[in-house]
Structure formats: C-alpha cells, structure tokens
C-alpha cells in the first residue's frame, strides 16, 4: 500500500498524539474515536510490515529503520496492546482525555521508533522520549504518590539512559558507525564489556530487573489501571527485553561470563520479587512485584545461551505482556467499581463481576505456569534451556531451583489475590457493585482468550510464526508435550469432577452455621486472604529481606540520594556565607594554577 510503511508507523502516532493534546478536553468523543482509529491503523500497518519483512527505510544511504524477524512480531504486539488498552480506556478514563490519549499515542509512536531503529542514535532518541512519556502519564493522576512514583521512574530510567549514551559512545569509537546491522563486536576487552553492560543496564532498568526495579511497584500502585497495564506491564517489558535481545545477539557476541551475570540477575530477581509480592496488601503493588519477578524469567531465558532457552525467554516476554496487562486491566475494573485497591477491604466480587473474575482467573493460572496456558509453555521452554546449558556451567541447578521456587510462590500469591479480592464473603465496605461496561471487559476477555490460544496451540501459532524465526538455530525440545491432547484430558477430568460433585457429592453433607465453643459468635470477622502469608515474615531471613525492601534499602534511587547527600552536607557547610572565605578560595585557586603552570 504505502511504499514506506516504516517511517509512517513511527511518526504518524506521534503527530496524532500532538493533535490529541492540542484538542480541548470537551471533545472527548472525537478524541476517543481518533485514537481508536489511529491505533487500529497502526496494528494493521505492523501486520503488513510483518508480512513483508525484512523492510528497510533509508535516509541518505544508510538504513535508519529496519524491520526484521525480531522487531516484526514485537511491533505487532505493541500495537495490539495499544489498541486493546485504548478500547479499555474508553470506559475507564475520567478526565484529561486529550492529554491521556495524546501521551498514549506518542508512546506508541516512540515504541515503534525504538523497535524499528537501525541507527543507535535514533533508538536512543526514542528511548529517552519514552521515559519522558512515562513520567507524564504517571503524573496524570495528580496525587502526591503519583508524583513521587513518576519522579523515581524518570530518574532511574533517565539515569540509565545516560549510561547507555556512554555505552553507545564506546561502540562508536570502536566501530565508527551507528548502524546496528553493521556492528558485531566480540566481548573480549574491557571496553567492549563496559559498552555491553552499559546498554544492558539501560534495558534492565526499563524492564524492571533488580537492582533497578524499584520504580515498578511504585508506579503500579499509584498510576491508573490502564496506564499501569500499558507501560510497566507490557510496553516496558517488551522494549526492555527487545533491547537486551538485540544487544546480546546482534550487536555483541556474548560469552559464558556475561551470560553468568544475566543468569544471576534473573534468578535473584525472580526470588526476591516474588517473596515481596507475597506480603503485599495492595492489589496493584502485588501485581507490580510480580511484574518484576517475571522479568527475571525472561532474563534467565536469554542468559541461558541455548536456542530453546532464548526462544523461551522471548516467548515469555510476549506471554507475560499478555497476562500481566490482563491482570492490570482487571485491577482497573475493580478499582472503578469498588473504589479501593486495598485487599483487606475487597472480597466476594466474583458474584458481581463475573467477566472480570473469569479474566483474572485465567490470567492468574497463566502467570503461575499451569498447563495448558501459555505461561506453562514458555516457562517449560526456559527450564529446558537451563538444563541444556548444563554443559557450560555447574550452577544450572541453582538457576533451575530458583525458577521453580519462584513459580511455586507465584501461584501461592495469586491464590491469595483471587481469594482476597473475588472469593469469600463480601466485605461490608463495598456497596452495590455491578460489572463494568463492555468497553472494559472485552479487552480483558480478549487477552484471556489469547492466553488460552497461545497455550493450547502454542506449536502452531505463536511459536512458528513469531518466536522461532527470531531465533537463529532450531530448538530441540526435550520430552513431549502434546498440548491439544493434554487440554482434552484436562477438560474431561474437570467435567467428570464437576458431574460427580453436582450429582453425587451433596447428599452426604450437613451444612451448619459457624460456632465457637458450642455457642454461635455474634459476628465473625471475615478472613481476608492477605493474612495467609504473614507467618512468612517470621522466618528471620525472609522477614529481614522484606523489611529492608519496604524500607527502601534495595531501592537504588534511595541509595543514590543518600550517597549524594553524604557529600552535599560538608560542601554546604563550607559555603558559610562569609565573604572573605570565598575570596580565600579564589586565591587558593589562583595559587594552584600558578604552581601548575610554572612547574609542569
């Protein structure tokens, strides 16, 4: 259709975003329609590009934009998420329409820019622009917590942006070019290692791996549901892991030592974040910590260095975006109807919000890695990748145990979430609740459906179309997993159990009211799910880690601030306001210069 689809895909949403910001808020119908059309067009465009790949766009005589296998499918994913979340936002956004949709569109355009960029400088420009958009989107909430969360996010992501500039500068002086398809450096000297890790740090911060993770739970807690679904859940992960993949496979030739670092970071992230998630009382903060933990899996997959592990990591990136944003969208729906995100105050919503509940259950099962959903397939591939990498290092047992342990804790915390929010008795705080409107539950159910499809038909749709072309080499699967057969068996088993329960189970039971010591209590307080895991904090090591984390001791931002304040206070005391002091510094400076010049 168009001869140059790539630059249009990048610049059109940005221009549309500017237009949305400029339009006054009163015309919200127009804004919504416009945004919907633009995101749908973007989705269509990215599918078109995906079929035509590889596609180039030249400026002068170098390819500035490039779509290959890896970027093709991520572009589809990004624009699909933008489209779904736009539809969701039709129902959920209550104010600042122009700015909200404008920022969403500009973020979409900038993400396309990062994904398709072949020139390191172009990618850097769009990457930094994304950080600014994140800041503005989070601050749309206009509360103090949102301001603090947004600032932390901007400083961490923007700071690592500057570190990436250093890495790119090093690449430039080593290779004298900025085009990514012409760079392929082996990791053999300190300069190359520094350049590699500078860029890896930037991708970690964006995706939310430790130790750069601290912005994610804060943003998840204080931003609105759709923003949290758009950015920390899906886009940032997709872009961060895209950069990591691009750097590890195309720009540099990685070695076992660098993979070791990746594996270690991945494993630590999984375990520590999931332990923090277990004791959260806020719906979104729990989801935020899980987002951090899932990034660990992706990094583990990419760091394993085997073809199947890398494919697993990429597939996990895609799956995580799907079910994570589904979960955040459900949190947005619950907040809109129940008015609170505090798990202690929620409960029993399953009867009133069936679609939300269904989506949440499916997504929770997917994230925990339960077959036959998509999370299971990608985690299974990652485990296989780690086992296969046993030949290169002895520590594979540690990584495998960490991954499985994380998986177990994930399902534990999601049981807690489901119980506290949806099951059990309804809390008295909540008044009349109804289901959310179709513009909100259709995207949720769509995402849940995709979870199921990608799980059952994993080997026919997503893997061969999206993931495997992006990975060089053919993965060798250990063992067999017949997804369709397993699904049929699971369904048969579930149906059999249900029939048994319905027709044969009830007759022998006697249902009585609660009683304590032979007497009926007046009012039994309802058991909220959040207290399930409080005993974990009693284990001294875990309790100490959790307390340190909530106090912000693992928070790189806080550590950085304290370190700088250590230097600021003595310097400030030196500036005591007395004029002769300042003049004496001037003379000391002058004398220093004299000595330097005369005795060189």
């Amino acid at each position: 259709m168009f001869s140059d689809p790539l630059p249009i895909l990048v610049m059109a949403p940005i221009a549309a975003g500017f237009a949305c910001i400029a339009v006054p808020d009163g015309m919200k119908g127009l804004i919504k329609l416009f945004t919907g059309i633009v995101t749908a067009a973007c989705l269509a465009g990215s599918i078109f590009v995906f079929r035509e790949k590889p596609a180039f766009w030249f400026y002068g005589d170098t390819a500035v934009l490039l779509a290959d296998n890896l970027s093709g499918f991520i572009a589809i994913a990004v624009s699909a998420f933008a489209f779904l979340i736009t539809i969701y936002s039709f129902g959920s956004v209550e104010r600042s329409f122009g700015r909200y949709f404008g920022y969403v569109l500009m973020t979409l355009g900038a993400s396309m820019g990062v994904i398709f960029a072949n020139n390191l400088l172009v990618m850097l420009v769009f990457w930094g622009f994304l950080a600014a958009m994140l800041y503005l989107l989070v601050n749309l909430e206009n509360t103090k917590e949102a301001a603090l969360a947004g600032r932390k996010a901007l400083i961490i992501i923007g700071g690592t942006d500057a570190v990436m500039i250093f890495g790119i500068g090093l690449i430039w002086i080593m290779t004298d070019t900025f085009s990514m398809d012409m760079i392929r450096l082996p990791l053999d000297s300190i300069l190359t290692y520094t350049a590699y890790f500078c860029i890896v740090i930037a991708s970690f911060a964006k995706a939310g791996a430790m130790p750069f993770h601290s912005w994610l739970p804060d943003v998840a807690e204080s931003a609105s549901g759709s923003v949290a679904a758009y950015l920390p859940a899906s886009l940032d992960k997709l872009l961060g892991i895209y950069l990591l993949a691009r750097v590890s496979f195309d720009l540099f030739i990685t070695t076992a030592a660098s993979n070791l670092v990746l594996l270690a970071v991945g494993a630590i992230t999984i375990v520590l974040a999931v332990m923090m998630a277990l004791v959260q009382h806020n719906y979104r903060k729990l989801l935020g910590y899980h987002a951090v933990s899932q990034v660990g899996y992706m990094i583990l997959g990419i760091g394993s260095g085997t073809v199947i592990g890398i494919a697993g990591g990429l597939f996990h990136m895609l799956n995580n975006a799907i079910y994570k944003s589904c979960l955040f969208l459900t949190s947005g729906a619950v907040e809109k109807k129940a008015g609170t995100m505090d798990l202690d105050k929620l409960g029993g919503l399953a009867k009133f919000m069936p679609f939300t509940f269904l989506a949440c259950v499916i997504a929770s099962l997917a994230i925990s890695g339960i077959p036959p959903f998509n999370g299971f397939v990608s985690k299974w591939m990652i485990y296989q990748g780690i086992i296969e990498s046993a030949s290169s290092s002895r520590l594979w047992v540690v990584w495998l145990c960490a991954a499985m342990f994380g998986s177990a804790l994930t399902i534990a915390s999601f049981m807690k979430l489901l119980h506290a929010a949806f099951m059990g008795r309804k809390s008295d705080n909540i008044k009349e609740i109804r289901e959310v409107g179709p513009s909100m539950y259709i995207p949720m159910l769509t995402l849940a459906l995709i979870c199921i499809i990608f799980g059952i038909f994993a080997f026919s749709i997503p893997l061969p179309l999206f993931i495997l072309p992006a990975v060089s080499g053919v993965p060798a699967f250990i063992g067999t997993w017949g997804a369709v057969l397993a699904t049929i068996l699971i369904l048969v088993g579930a149906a059999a159990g249900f029939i048994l329960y319905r027709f044969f189970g009830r007759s022998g039971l006697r249902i009585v009211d609660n009683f304590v010591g032979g007497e009926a209590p007046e009012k039994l307080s309802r058991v909220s799910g959040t207290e399930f895991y409080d005993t974990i904090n009693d284990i001294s090591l875990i309790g100490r880690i959790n307390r340190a984390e909530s106090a912000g001791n693992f928070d790189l931002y806080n550590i950085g601030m304290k370190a700088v304040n250590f230097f600021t206070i003595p310097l400030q005391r030196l500036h005591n306001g007395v004029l002769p002091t300042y003049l004496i510094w001037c003379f000391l400076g002058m004398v220093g210069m004299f000595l330097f010049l005369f005795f060189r």
Partner: protein
Amino acid sequence: MHLFLIIPLAAAFMMAILARTGDCVRDIISGLAAISLAVFSVLTLMAANFFHSAVIVKSFAGFMPPAGTAFVVDGLSAFMLVTVNTVALFVVLYSAGYMNKYTDKWKFQSLFFLMISGINGVLVASDMFNLYVFLEIAAISAYFLVAFGTEAEELEASFKYAVMGTVASAFILLGIAFLYSHTSTLSLAGIAQAIAAAPSARIVQFVSVLFLMGFALKAALVPFHAWLAYAHSSAPAPISAMLSGVLIKVLGIYAIARIFFSVFGASAGICQILIALGVLSMIAGGVLAFGQSDIKRLFAYSTVSQIGYVALALGVATPLAFFGAVFHLFNHSIVKSLLFLNSGSIEQMFRTRDLSKISGVVAGAPVTGYTSIMGAMSISGVPPFGGFWSKLIIIFACLQAGHPVLAAIAVLVSVMTMAYYFAAMTPALFGAGINSFNAVKKVHGIMNVSVMALAVLALAAPLALLPEMRQRLIDGAVQALVNGSAYAATVLGAIK
C-alpha cells in the same frame, strides 16, 4: 556593527528621559529596541557565515587597527550575538509584565539596556581595553540590577557579588597592564602576533593566570563560583535569567575562548587547567544543588554545573568538542532563561521560593508548569530537546579524544542533573494545589508568551544539527575556535 552598541545605549538614555511618561510608551520602545537588536544579530550571523568564516571589521573614527580600534565580528561573535539578543528579547517581553510590581520601572529598563550594550560591546570588541571597558559596563549594571528590589537579602547578595567581581576586574586590569608592557599594543590581533613571535615567555604564563582568575570568576567556575548562588537567587527573575543565561557566558566563557584560543594560542597547560576547572564545577555544582530548597538557588548551582560542561569541552579542544561547547552554550542560555523566568512566575503566584511549600503548578498555571517540565527535561538530557544532543556530543567528543574517564564523569553528572531537577521540582509541579491557591494571582499574559517562545526554541534547537542549518549557524563559530591562531591574520588581512 556599531548598531549593536548604539541601539541599546540610545534606548537606555531614552528610558531615563521618558521617566515621567506612562509605562506603555516605555514598554513599546524597549520592545522595539529588543526586536531590532535580535533581527540585526540574525542578519549579522547570516552575513558572517555566508562569507564562510570571514571576519567583518568596522573601524571606529577612521583609524585602522592596530593603531585605532575597530569592531570585529567573526563566527563565534556572531553566534553569541544571536544567542544574547534573542534571550534579551524574550526577557524584555517578560519583564514588561513582571516588573509591574516594582516601582521605578524606568530605572530597571535603563540599566537593563546599559547591560545589554555592555554585553554586545564585549562581543564586538577587537582590542583588550575595549573588552575591559564594556565588561565593566555590563558588570556594574548587573551589580545594580541584582540589588534592584532593595530587600535585605538582595543588598547582601549584590554586595558580595560586587566585591568579588571587582577583585576579579582588578586582576584582569593588572593582567592587561603586564601584557601591554610586554607587547606594546592593545589590539587583539596585534597581541596575537606579538605572542606568536615569542610564545613561551614567562610573562605570558603569568598573565594567563591573572586572566584565568579574573574571567573564571566572571564565568563562575569552581572555586570562583560562590557569588553566583547569591546573585542569581536574590535578583528579580528577569535579571536572574539574563545573568545566568547570558552574562556569565559572554563575560566569562567567551572572553576565555577569545583570549586563550585566538590570542594566546591554546597551549596544553591552559587546556588542562580548563578541563580541571570544568570537572570541579560539574561535580561541585551538581552535589551542591541537591541540598537546595530554594528554587532559584537550585537553578544557580545547576548553572555552575552546566558551565563546567562547557569549560570541559573547551579544554578537550577537538573540533567535535568545540561544536558541543558552542551548542551547549546556546541550549543552556535558552533553557536557563526559561527556567528562571518560570521561577519568577511561580514566585509571583505563591509568594515564596521555598520548594517544600509549593505544589500544583501544573494544575494552576499550565503554561508555566509544562514549560518548566520542558526546560528541566532539556537540561537533564531527555530527547528530543536540544540539551540531550549537546550533552551527547560532549560525551562523544571526550571519548573520541581518548578521555574515557572524563566521559564517565560527564555521564555521572548528567544522571545527577536529572536527579536533582526532578527530585526537587516534581512535588512542586504536580500534586494538588494548596488551599489558598484561589487567592493567588494569575500569570500575566505576556509573560506566558515569552516563556512559550523560549520553550519552542528549546524544542527546535536540535534542528540546528541538520547539515544545512548547521553550516549556516554553528560552523562559523566552530571554525573560529579551531583556527584560533588564524585570528590575527584574518583580522589584519580583512583590513587591507
């Protein structure tokens, strides 16, 4: 050429004469003067670069240098002239609205145009003593302007600034005396020739130190920076904008560049000193900015840090580094003026400068809020603003010249810059407004216009990097620095 001096001087005197007439007449005259200066400076830049790094010379009273004095504009001067006069235009527009709260507005306008004439004079001066005289004119007007509000703190700040500035000027004058005794000529081109004949005389190094001390104090490099926090935070907002955005750069950095690169010939020792001063300024300015709760003092220390970047780039002394230095000068002028003008609006709205007491700027005054965000993002190095590109170029230039440690320090300071700007400003900008917000004055219309124009310039600055624009705008300045030693030959050649 002489128009650059005549227009502001005439405007200054007319302000004094028209003291009794209404504000409108004086505002219109000052606006016209500023616009004409800005337009003329752009024309000069076009002319200077059109003839490809040629030098425009205009003699004064018929005697040619080195006997007489002349006005010389080369690529660097033309570029700085554009920067200065553009910023001055927007500050004049802004002060038309802001200074209504002070009495005796005519004194302000008169002194302001005197300062502009002094700054322009430094830029077009072709001999040493002219440089000194115009430097003093600008500096003395600045001392007066800082004390304009005559509150206790402003007087204290102005006194400290004045004493330190006078000591610096005394050293510069002493340096001029020594230099004259060595070279017997005052014209910059003549001095360049005399020094080229005997480059490593001890007296040249002695004079270099005296000049460095004097001009580094004017430029607010560490350890000569202490006056800046006082002067820039206590002055009225438009004056802070002019001081931070323009005066430091012209009186300090331009003078250093002109004297050390064009006249003395850059030696390795001077470059190393510049690098050392630059690194000290970057780090000390950044660290000190963290502890500030006064918004203008925060910006002032940030200025120290950013001027450190420029000094570092000048010290590295490769063509790419010069490009980064010049471009960073331009970006920083625009953005710092924008930030200071906004701080004036914020001060007017909230009646305090203390950041912990301010909140909800974006909700209450969207133009001020969003342009402040754009300004802070530009300085912190967020794409696509101009500040990102200039920092990128400086970091790459350090790497290219083989100084990876310097580049790492520049990156670290960039992270610090982003941290202290946003850590301090985010709670002030966002968050619900304070209760008494409704009773607070709104921002005057014309103040918004000038601030928005500056923000647009900050956003459009990267366009100057496109090859066609770059050739017309910046390359002349870079050439002037790179071929510094050719200054004398070019000037004397242009006379004949």
